[in-house]
């Protein structure tokens, strides 16, 4: 599903279009818990983050992970700083009045699938 189709099926507003032209939205991860977003998502460059959080940290987490797009649910209004950040990054930012559950359901029904979850790998001591 393309970004414009996503906006259409979730009844969303596209606040930031992003730099890539109508990108493919193939995968998603939904959470308000940013700790989980940081810990679990993988393949982020193709992953849309669905969240109800509109704190500055959402954009910083999305920036660090290289998230493909953000959908803000439950009718939250992102502050200007969030819109500016997304614009600077060229990251699509959408809003919808739907709940997270319904947003995810609609996205899944339209072919969007869960992003990969990061496997735990063995670590060695620094020295």
């Amino acid at each position, binding site marked *: 599903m393309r970004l414009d189709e996503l906006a259409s099926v979730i009844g969303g507003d596209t606040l930031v279009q992003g730099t890539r032209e109508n990108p493919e939205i193939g995968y998603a991860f939904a959470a308000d818990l940013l700790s989980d977003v940081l*810990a679990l998502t993988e393949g982020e460059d193709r992953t849309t983050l669905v969240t109800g959080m509109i704190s500055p*940290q959402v954009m910083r987490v999305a920036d660090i992970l*290289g998230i493909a797009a953000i959908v803000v649910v439950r009718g939250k209004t992102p502050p200007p700083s969030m819109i500016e950040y997304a614009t600077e990054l060229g990251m699509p930012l959408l809003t919808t009045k739907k709940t997270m559950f319904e947003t995810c359901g609609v996205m899944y029904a339209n072919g969007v699938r869960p992003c990969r979850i990061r496997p735990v790998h063995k670590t060695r*001591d*620094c020295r």
Partner: protein
Amino acid sequence: MRFQIQAGDIEHGGSASARIKSELTRSGVDPSTARRVGIVSFEAEMNLIVYSDRGGSLTVRVEPEAVVVEIEDSGPGIEDIELAMTPGYSTAPEWATDLGFGAGMGLANMKVNADGFEIWSQPGEGTRITCRIDRAGSAAPGRKEGHETE
């Protein structure tokens, strides 16, 4: 790069890490490594903000084969490191969890994203953590063999 992180400064939480990732990418560190460094430093930064008494330092050093992240604070220290490393275990205050942090994934996530992880902590004294993230482009066969023979 060295950043001083203030305890309780949630407003700027993650801004040092976003800058670190951006600077690393700009200086030619591959995106995958920069992303892992960003995750490790973000977790460390939030830990300093949420848990430390007086904040602490976050230092990032770029070496030819790895990026090293060092975190140091002067208290309160961790009573039980093994317990603190357990995914899901958290002593975060409510204001942190309200903002989506403090889920008890921080230290475990740092370890998962690092190729080397070392932690020292003493209650009443402080905590020091060193994480080494191997640079993706530096995994030359010779170097890898060297690791295996260690």
